[in-house]
């Protein structure tokens, strides 16, 4: 267990002050666009409530809606697959591609396929996978992972992209004009689209009532991808369900506005069954999701529509960068999901989840000042900061906190629960602080003092002031009655 991980990676990111501030500003800009849109819809708060309620309803009748979706999707001619975990998902997708003799595939943005590490699996098996979302293609060419679920390359500057494209796509060295670079990617990816034999997409919403699903993009890559080859594989978590098509209205009104401050994404595509002459596979993946409904404290995380608003507003994410989370989903939602996935079976008294979830991500719930902004921007009202607080307890309960911290907090509890002891220790500290040499107060052992002064130590505690003067003070002081306030 490595609880020091996020702070260390965050410190490295913060060390490049100019870049950290640039990153912060870029994301704050998205947050302000989101605010503008949220404030343009008078029923915004009601929509959030409905967004939460519909999802909670769907989870409360999860197996019914999954069955309904499967039945309707199958009737439309889609083939529905069930995967318990990453390994099974990847095996199913590879199997479909191999069966069809596919060697080249394009993929639009899907955090699920990032979560299950589909790309490396396909590549290992000789299949060329091209991510077609511009941001994802950039990080793919750089052999990095996305640093954000909606803005995968938000950690990169235009100069970084220019260099990458110069190296891989042969663009002019030094030309960092985003329009030029985007045009180059357009030409490059058109070739990939035209040459692909299958396309993989994620899913934003599965509609139980119709057996269809919705995919939202701004670039049009999911549509271009799926309309060229005859084979389409849609990979999705089992929590993406909505009961009715009419519910889509609620979520589509919330999603684009929350994600990027757009009134709706450019393309909102409704897929119902395969194209004429085509083949459609829908792979429904559990991979730990079904465990998340067990604990009512954490159940609402299943509401998540992956808009990224909590990430954009998070003051820690903006200043520590997505890669500091070392997980597919960063920011507040990731700081809930990753440790929860890793720790939930342990709560239930089972063994740790096997396989790729070796890391408990125990430092993530602490990468948070508990400011609560994430909870208030969340379009489906996930109480994110309360869940992060609750997860700290889970980390503590699993004995994953450093020994020093546990001893320190035990001592603090004893000290703080005794007014006498607390008063005595406080008195000593207040007397000592002003006379201690600066070196003794501000040194490497004092994380407070690296960037901040300590408050000046007053001669008396409040309790002493109360006894000495305040208790007997008149209720309505005259002009000089309160003149001795220690200012």
């Amino acid at each position, binding site marked *: 267990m490595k609880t020091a991980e996020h702070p260390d990676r965050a410190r490295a990111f913060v060390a490049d002050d100019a870049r*950290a501030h640039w990153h912060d500003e870029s994301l704050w800009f998205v947050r302000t666009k989101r605010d503008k849109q949220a404030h343009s819809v008078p029923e915004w708060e009601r929509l959030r409530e409905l967004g939460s309620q519909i999802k909670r309803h769907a989870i409360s009748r999860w197996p019914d809606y999954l069955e309904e979706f499967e039945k309707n999707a199958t009737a439309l001619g889609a083939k529905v697959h069930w995967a318990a975990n990453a390994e099974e998902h990847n095996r199913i997708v590879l199997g479909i591609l191999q069966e069809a003799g596919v060697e080249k595939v394009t993929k639009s943005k899907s955090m699920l396929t990032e979560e299950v590490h589909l790309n490396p699996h396909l590549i290992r098996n000789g299949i060329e996978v091209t991510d077609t979302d511009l941001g994802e293609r950039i990080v793919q060419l750089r052999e990095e992972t996305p640093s954000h679920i909606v803005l995968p390359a938000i950690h990169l500057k235009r100069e970084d992209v220019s260099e990458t494209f110069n190296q891989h796509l042969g663009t002019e060295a030094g030309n960092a004009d985003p329009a030029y670079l985007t045009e180059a990617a357009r030409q490059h990816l058109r070739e990939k689209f035209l040459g692909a034999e299958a396309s993989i997409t994620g899913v934003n919403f599965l509609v139980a009532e119709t057996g269809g699903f919705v995919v939202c993009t701004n670039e049009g890559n999911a549509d271009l991808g799926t309309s060229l080859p005859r084979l389409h594989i849609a990979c999705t978590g089992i929590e993406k369900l909505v009961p009715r098509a009419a519910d889509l209205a609620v979520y589509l009104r919330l999603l684009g506005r929350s994600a990027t401050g757009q009134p709706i994404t450019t393309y909102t595509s409704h897929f119902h069954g395969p194209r004429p002459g085509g083949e459609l596979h829908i792979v429904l993946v559990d991979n730990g999701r079904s465990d998340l409904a067990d604990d009512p404290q954490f159940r609402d995380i299943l509401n998540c529509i992956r808009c990224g608003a909590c990430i954009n507003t998070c*003051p820690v994410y903006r200043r520590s960068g997505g890669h500091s989370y070392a997980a597919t989903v960063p920011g507040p939602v990731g700081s809930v999901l990753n440790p929860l996935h890793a720790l939930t079976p342990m709560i239930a008294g089972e063994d740790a989840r096997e396989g790729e979830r070796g890391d408990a991500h125990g430092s993530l719930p*602490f990468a948070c000042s508990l*400011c609560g902004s994430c909870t208030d921007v969340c379009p489906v009202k996930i109480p994110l900061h309360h869940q992060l607080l609750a997860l700290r307890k889970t980390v*503590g309960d699993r004995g994953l906190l450093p020994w020093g911290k546990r001893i320190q907090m035990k001592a603090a509890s004893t000290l*703080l629960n005794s007014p006498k002891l607390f008063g005595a220790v406080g008195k000593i500290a207040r007397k000592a602080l002003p006379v201690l040499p600066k070196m003794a107060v501000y040194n490497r052992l004092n994380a*407070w003092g690296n960037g901040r002064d300590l408050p000046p*130590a007053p001669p008396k505690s409040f309790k002493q002031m109360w006894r000495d003067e305040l208790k007997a003070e008149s209720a309505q002081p005259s002009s000089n009655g309160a003149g001795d306030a220690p200012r």
Partner: protein
Amino acid sequence: MRVGLFIPCYVDQFYPRVGAAAVRVLRRFGGPDLTLEYPEGQVCCGQPMANAGLPHESKPLAETNLRTFAEFDAVVCPSGSCTSMVRNHYGPFLEGQPGFEELKAKTYEFCEFLTDVLKVGSPSGRFPHKVGLHPGCHGLRELRLGSGSERNVEPFDKVKSLLTGLEGLTFSEPARPDECCGFGGTFAVNEEAVSVMMGQDKIADHKQAGTEALVSPDMSCLMHLEGVLRRGGDKQTRVLHVAEVLEEATRET
């Protein structure tokens, strides 16, 4: 009304002047019906341990405070964060214990006690400074002392409303008025690098907005922000709890 004053542990030790200001303001606006007491049996709200992932270490403190404040009609605390701890986070420790529901209902943050219980409106007085308000996240988002920038609700701000009647007072307008300052309790040392950067950014925002007096209903945020301010060499900017502003501004009325 018998009011028990709940003074946060760090205010007791480092900012007794804030407690004193709260006492004077409450007496000034409470009138003869308000009896103010400071029960000495009170202890820290327990937040440091709970936020560190060890809430069982907070339980004894919650129990002590439940007993200590049992006899009062209201509990007033000059901190949004400690108030929220009692109101929103004592459940796991005290659920079902006699007096717990009452404790939650009768515990008020200082500003909301003035606005909602004493109904002081916007008191008149004088405070000739450009004030930069820092709302404090727990007061803002857990106690709803204000509407906040995230939500699309009718705008309100209980803290600000207490200051708008003061002569000579103007408000600075930071670009991100309710972004977290980066204190966050144990976060301030756990994630020291990010915490300090957040504090520096908050100070820079107030500087560009022309803040002369940095004012908050939460001294914990201010301890962090004052630390950053003074470390940066600024000895000018005043750093004050809302209670201090009200005390100073309404002293002669």
